[in-house]
Each structure stands twice: as structure tokens, then as C-alpha cells.
């Protein structure tokens, strides 16, 4: 056959140049063209995606604003060991920081920031700020404690010490309802203030549940789509895709029309005497509502990858299996189902990742009981203005998604993903 040659021997083109060099030159133009074709998207993604994500990561640990306001305090407070109340030097340094902040009318920001570390700090700073003009020089420790006796409480001073750093990762602890106690150990915050853990667990459970119910509902539809005559399957495909062409907000609102106490479903059930008028079912403003609406909205993301995989499975395979003596059920389990794994996994990862960060639907249909972690993030973004905590939670969400992709890549391989 072919003459054997050593693969490490250089191969030359007809004009005597190295073949690999020649090939690179010949392909250079094509590569340049390809690069310029993707350039706009590359720039767009860098500007609108990679850069903001970098900002997000920095924001979640950034404490430099407060650190600047406490420029004198942070020089001395870290020498304090934290056993007893700190000495005069700390109070005097804090006096300088607070009084200059009051002069510049910036003490509100200090109050907000310190309040994240320990609630009560806000009122403490505001109260002290009003009296700080009356402080005499010297003996600031006594004057602070006289202005408010909380300044004599070591916990507030410890909180101040913790806050006087330019960067810290404590928001990540807060994101999981954890905190660092005085001894530096990580502990859970008091039970009545825990909320994030519940939301994380709920989010994961809802995302998994929605993925599973999407899979159960999509599999037969995708099978029908893949095996039906083209005339009917096109119609069914339009029905599947119809939600894509409708605004998310409209779809979610229409679920509200259906699910509310005076809504269509309850009305029908009452009309049919299945449910008494006074016992109308609570179908929304709870987990059930979130679950139902999200399943419907995410359904196409499961149907399409499944369909694209099933379309490639020859119907002859099942016939072949049955001709060999396998019952239809056995043939389905051993032949058909394994061939759809790549579609199942692609659809599942897609639905899971979308579900885990879902915002509008749980906000509108879920109410307080059906809220997910993204609603909490939005709350910290818009209402409490604790952006550091919001971005820390966002980063955790991002990490979860990346973990899901990593697991997917390990089990299935990202190259096997088929999305329609």
C-alpha cells in the first residue's frame, strides 16, 4: 500500500518550502476573514458580558468606600486585640473620621455600610453624628459612651474592626446565612433571621423539579414531533414554539389570570362542583404557581434538543429490535432511550440553568412563598441597596451554573450537546 514514512520527518511542498509553513500561509487569509467575522460579537460579548462579570466579582468583595471613610480608624483599630473595649487611640481616630464625614455630609453612607455588619449601627451613627459637634477635644472614649452607651458595647467595636478592611469575603457567608463570630469562627446567624439558605434550597429544588417535569412532558411531545408525518408535525412544532414568540411578561401575566383565586381554573372547578366556593385552591403566590408557570415557559427548551436527537434515530432500529424478539418496552429501554441521552442531558442542563436564575415568573406568580434566590438578589439590588451582598449571591449563582456545566461536560461531553 503506502510507503511507510516516519511521521516526524518534515514534509515539503512542491516548491521546497516546509509544508506546515506553506499551509499556514495558504490558510492565513481564511483565518483573518473568520476573525473579522466574529470580531463584532467578540467585542460585544466582552463589553456586555465578560466585563460586567468581572465587575460583579470585584463588587462582591469590595469594601473600599467604607475603608476610605475610616482612613484614621483602620490604622489603629487592627492593633486592638478585641478582648476588652479598645483604648482612647481608636475612639480618637474614629472621632476624626466621623466628624470629617459629618462635615462632608457623608455620615449616612457610613451608617448604612456599618449597619450591614451589625444592625443597630445605623441609628447609633445617626444619633452620634448629631452630638459630635459638641464633643470637646480629648477623652473621646468617655464622650462617645456618654453620647450613646452602645459605644461601650464591645460587639459594636468588634463590628467596626471587621468593617475597617478594603476587601472582605464575608458577603459570601451572608449569602448562606453564615457569619463570623468574635473568635473568627463561622457560625449560623440566629434562626429568625435566616432566609437565604431556604431560598437557595428552594431554588435548587424548583430548578430540579421543573427540569424533571419538563422532561416528562417533553419526551412524548418530542417523540410525536420526530415520528409524525411532516404535515402534522409542523403544526405541532408551531404550537411548541408559539410561547417563544410571546413576551415572557405576557405569558406570566396570563398564568396569573388562570391561577388566581378568582381565576379561570378555580372558577371552572367551582362551576363543576369539584371545589366549594369558599375553599378555592391557592394555585399562585406559592411554590405551586412558580412551578407550574416555569414548567410551561421552559418547556420548549427541553422539547427542541430532544426533538433534534430523536429526529436522527431511524425508526428501523425499533423494528430491528422487535424483529429480534425484544418486546416494544424492552426495545424502548435498551435501544431508543439510550440513543436520546444526549438530547435529555442537553435539554436538562439548559432548563436547569435557565430555571435556577429565573426572576420574572417567580416574582409575579410566586409571591413571597414562591420567591427564588434571584428575587432576593433583585431585592438587595433595588431595595436594601446592599450591592456587595447582591453580587456575592449572583456570583454563587454563576458558580452553580458553571458547576452544572462542568458536571455535564464530565458525564456527557459538551461536544454532544445538540440544541435543535
Amino acid at each position, binding site marked *: 500500500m503506502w510507503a511507510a514514512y516516519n511521521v516526524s520527518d518534515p514534509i515539503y511542498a512542491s516548491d521546497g518550502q516546509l509544508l506546515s509553513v506553506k499551509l499556514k500561509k495558504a490558510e492565513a487569509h481564511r483565518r483573518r476573514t473568520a476573525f473579522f467575522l466574529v470580531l463584532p460579537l467578540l467585542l460585544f460579548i466582552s463589553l456586555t458580558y465578560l466585563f460586567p462579570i468581572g465587575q460583579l466579582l470585584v463588587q462582591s468583595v469590595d469594601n473600599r468606600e467604607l475603608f476610605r471613610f475610616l482612613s484614621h480608624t483602620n490604622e489603629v483599630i487592627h492593633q486592638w486585640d478585641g478582648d476588652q473595649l479598645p483604648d482612647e487611640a481608636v475612639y480618637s481616630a474614629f472621632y476624626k473620621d466621623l466628624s470629617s464625614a459629618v462635615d462632608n455630609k457623608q455620615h449616612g453612607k457610613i451608617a448604612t455600610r456599618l449597619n450591614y455588619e451589625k444592625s443597630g449601627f445605623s441609628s447609633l451613627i445617626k444619633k452620634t453624628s448629631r452630638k459630635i459637634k459638641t464633643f470637646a477635644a480629648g477623652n473621646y472614649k468617655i464622650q462617645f459612651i456618654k453620647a450613646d452607651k452602645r459605644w461601650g458595647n464591645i460587639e459594636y467595636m468588634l463590628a467596626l474592626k471587621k468593617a475597617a478592611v478594603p476587601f472582605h469575603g464575608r458577603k459570601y457567608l451572608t449569602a448562606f446565612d453564615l457569619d463570623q463570630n468574635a473568635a473568627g469562627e463561622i457560625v449560623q446567624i440566629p434562626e429568625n433571621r435566616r432566609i437565604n439558605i431556604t431560598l437557595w434550597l428552594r431554588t435548587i429544588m424548583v430548578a430540579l423539579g421543573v427540569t424533571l417535569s419538563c422532561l416528562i412532558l417533553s419526551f412524548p411531545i418530542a417523540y410525536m414531533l420526530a415520528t409524525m408525518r411532516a404535515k402534522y408535525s409542523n403544526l405541532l412544532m408551531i404550537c411548541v414554539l408559539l410561547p417563544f414568540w410571546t413576551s415572557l411578561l405576557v405569558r406570566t401575566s396570563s398564568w396569573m389570570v388562570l391561577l388566581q383565586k378568582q381565576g379561570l381554573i378555580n372558577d371552572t372547578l367551582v362551576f363543576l362542583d369539584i371545589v366549594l366556593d369558599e375553599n378555592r385552591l391557592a394555585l399562585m403566590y406559592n411554590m405551586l404557581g412558580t412551578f407550574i408557570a416555569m414548567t410551561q415557559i421552559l418547556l420548549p427548551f427541553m422539547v427542541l434538543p430532544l426533538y433534534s436527537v430523536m429526529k436522527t434515530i431511524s425508526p428501523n432500529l425499533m*423494528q430491528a429490535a422487535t424483529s429480534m*424478539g425484544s418486546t416494544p418496552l424492552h426495545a424502548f429501554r*435498551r435501544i431508543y432511550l439510550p440513543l436520546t441521552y444526549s438530547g435529555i442531558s442537553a435539554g436538562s442542563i439548559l432548563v436547569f440553568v435557565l430555571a435556577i436564575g429565573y426572576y420574572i415568573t417567580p416574582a409575579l406568580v410566586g409571591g413571597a412563598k414562591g420567591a427564588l434566590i434571584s428575587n432576593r438578589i433583585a431585592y438587595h439590588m433595588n431595595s436594601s441597596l446592599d450591592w456587595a451582598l447582591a453580587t456575592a449571591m449572583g456570583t454563587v449563582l454563576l458558580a452553580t451554573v458553571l458547576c452544572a456545566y462542568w458536571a455535564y461536560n464530565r458525564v456527557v461531553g459538551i461536544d454532544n450537546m445538540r440544541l435543535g
Partner: protein
Amino acid sequence: MSQLKKAFVKFEQVDKSYDGKKLIVKGLNLDIAEGEFLTLLGPSGSGKTTTLMMLAGFETPTNGEIYLNGKPISSIPPYKRGIGMVFQNYALFPHLTVFENLAFPLKVRNLSKQLISERVNQTLAMVSLDGFGSRMPSQLSGGQQQRVAVARALVFDPKLVLMDEPLGALDKNLRESMQYELKSIHEKLGVTIVYVTHDQGEALTMSDRIAVFNDGNIQQLSSPNHLYESPVNSFVARFIGENNTFKGVVKAINGNLATVKTDAGPIIKANAILAGSVGDQTTVSLRPERVFINPDVTIENQFKCAVKQIIYHGDHIRVRVSILGSDNFILKVPNSNNQLNLTVGDKVKLGWSFMDCRALD
């Protein structure tokens, strides 16, 4: 041979319709003997694949009954029929290795691991694929995949194997060598094979008997040489092999000799197969290799013609001539030593025996 044995497979008055408007298979009666290699041959849409699918159990007859070994099988699901099947696109399970593909029907039958591995390796050896067990189907060439498909249909020892155009996707050389291989496997195992194809060459080389399908029914059921030499109607004559045809009117019938006046005028002496009676329209059909140049004087039909085109085919030469009002009369001249020096435009004399020239419907 087959007439002596009792029917192993029997189609009795089988109809099949998909839409309730048109019959794909019409009143089909067919007996298949045990150990026979029977080919269903026909153009696409003639009902041959539907017939095969009804036998496999993937389609149900609209009317009539199919018997396997004397038992009606219409109500038996395909997985209980124990019929091996080879599909046109092979239908190998892409996620299983060659070994697992072959083991599938045996595992379903709960055979022991050792027995399975024995049977699989035996069967792989039979199709000359020893050592290919651990490959995935996608790593095999078309011909190898084809042989795996055949092996998989045979591995569980079925008494009946159905093949639906199994060689359709192979290139010409491979197809021919696979034909011989299938034939020898059939002879070795003595299994009954029902084979569907639209390729007449394939049907002629492999089959014991051929059923020529057209329009939902069998036009002729006979051995390959009988089919080729004595087609019973013009469809079979046209479908099997090449033909020159003349349309004409029967002028006289004397025993098996029919005198036909062609539409162009001259009289042809033909073999009266389905000529009807005097005055009827008929089609006279003649194989290109049964026409001779400068014939012996004893040959009944002799006509002058003009050479229109000469096409070189390697082993033979095709000559297109103008004769009896037809411009598309083809004759085949073997490429032998005593070659005729023909050129386009030559006038030559052609002749053929009345026995080779068949007056059909």
C-alpha cells in the same frame, strides 16, 4: 423443487391498504417453500416492501391471512414471530458494539453468557468479521456494516430471514461480491430467505424463484432463467433485462406461430405467448442479444437496417439501428475476435428466430 414441499410461508388472498382508497397489495397468493431463496422484485410502489413488512409483522393485512409453518400469524406481534430481518440502512444499534449488536437477540432469549459469546463469534466468523466484535458500527465500512446486519439477523437461528434491499447502499463491486456471499450463506445454512429488491441483476443471480411485483400483485413467479427466457407479459419482459418492442396487429395464429403486421408495415413471425386472437393488438418483444447480423438464411425474420450509433461497452458492443419504423432498436454484439467492422450509416441485414420474438399482451 419448491412445488413438492409444503408451503412454509403462505399468503392467502392478502390485501393491504393504507388510506382506504387505494390497494397497495391486491389479493396476494404466494407459497414459499422451506429453505427457498425467494425474491420479491418490482419497481418502487409495487407492493413488494409492504408484503415483506406484513410478513415481518410491522404492517397488518387489511384482508386475508398469512400462515407461517401452517399457523396464521396476523395476530402474533413481530417480537414473537422469530423472523430475522435485514434492513436497507442496516439498522445497527449505533450505541452498541458489533458484539453487543449480535448479542442483543440472544440476550432477549436469556441465553447464558458463554453460549452468547460462542454463538456471536461463530456468526461473526461466518461473515468473515472475526475480531471486529469490539468495534462500534460507525467504525466499520458500509460493506462491513452490511455483513454485521446479516450476521445479526442470523445469529439467533431463525427459520426465516427477510431482507429489504440490503445491498442498495453499497457500490457496484461490493454489491456483487455480497450477492455471492449471501448466496453461499443461504446454501450453507438452508434458511428460508425472502429478499426484496428492485435490482433485476441481483434477483437473477441469487434467487431460487423470483416473484415479479407490479401494481400490488405478482405478475410472474418462476425461476430466474424461466423469467428471463419466457416472460409471460410485456411488463415482466420490460422489467427483466432489455427489450426491443414492436406494436402490431395479429394477422394469423398457427400453433405457437403468430404472424404480426407491425404498425410500420412489415410482417414479423413471432412466438404466440399472449397474442390473443386474430385482429388483436399485440406487443412483440425481443432481447437485444438474440438478434444476429448477416443471419443464416433459415432464420424466419430478416430485415435490412441502418446503423445509427455504436456504443463500446467493453465485453460487448451495443449497436442502435433504425428498423421497422423504430429508431431505438438495440442489438448486442459480443466483443469477440471475429469483430464486424461496423460504422455509423452502414446498411446491414439483421435476423432473429421467431422463438425469441414473443408476442405478448
